[in-house]
């Protein structure tokens, strides 16, 4: 209960802050429910209304085979699919799988890179929403217990 209240309040702050930024007029609402979902399926349903995605090889998902450090895993996603509306990164074994989602307006290329945290070895899934469907591709990233490091 307390948790919900707190997150709700934070949501409000975030909204206020967005509203306060003069240049950011059209920023969409941060998809809180999808981000808080504790399972892949729920996260997808919250974001897209369905957890059914079409597997495709038209998405290039670049992730390391073995993460050097689970706290900083480089991820790059691009696609040859047309009319892309959004790109999302999900990590199945993370406590909350939805890591990030990017809205792609017309004119913006479906080609993004970021760095994410992974709690353990898991599939990393790139989900791309286009005007005619939801597509995905996944690759496993191994997260090991380090030795001494760097």
């Amino acid at each position, binding site marked *: 209960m307390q948790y919900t209240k707190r997150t709700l309040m*934070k949501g409000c*702050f*975030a909204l*206020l*802050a*967005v509203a*306060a*930024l003069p*240049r*950011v007029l*059209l*920023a*969409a609402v*941060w*998809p809180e429910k999808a*981000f808080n979902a504790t399972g892949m399926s729920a996260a997808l349903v919250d974001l897209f209304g369905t957890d059914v995605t079409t597997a495709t090889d038209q998405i290039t998902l670049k992730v390391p085979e073995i993460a050097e450090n689970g*706290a*900083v*895993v480089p991820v790059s996603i691009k696609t040859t699919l047309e009319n892309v509306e959004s790109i999302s990164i999900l*990590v199945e074994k*993370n*406590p*909350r799988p*939805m*890591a*990030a*989602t*990017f*809205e*792609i*307006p017309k*004119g*913006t*290329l479906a*080609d*993004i*890179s*970021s*760095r*994410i*945290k*992974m709690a353990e070895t898991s599939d990393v899934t790139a989900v791309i929403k286009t005007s005619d469907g939801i597509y995905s591709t996944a690759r496993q990233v191994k997260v090991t217990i380090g030795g001494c490091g760097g």
Partner: protein
Amino acid sequence: MASAIKVKTKLSGDIAEVKSLMLHPMETGSRKDPDSGNVIPVHHITQLVFTNNGKQVMVANFSTAVSKNPYFSFSFSGAKAGDRLHVSWVDNLGEKAELETQLK
């Protein structure tokens, strides 16, 4: 004071490649302070917005699973030298930062 956002851009034809780096702890809310043993409250960027000459070119929504000092890069078309690229982020505590740069 150093800015909390760094941006590098590269124009090739009308395509601008944008690389950005944010100074932010991205606390998950499940980490404990090694000294006090108290849980460090969740603190993360929620939204990162890019506009070019006022037109929105990217909205990135982040969870706590984006790494500390987040990195994000993307490209957009229809860009030309002299365009004003504006970057801003807000976090779950209402903190924010912004930066404007010219494409070249």
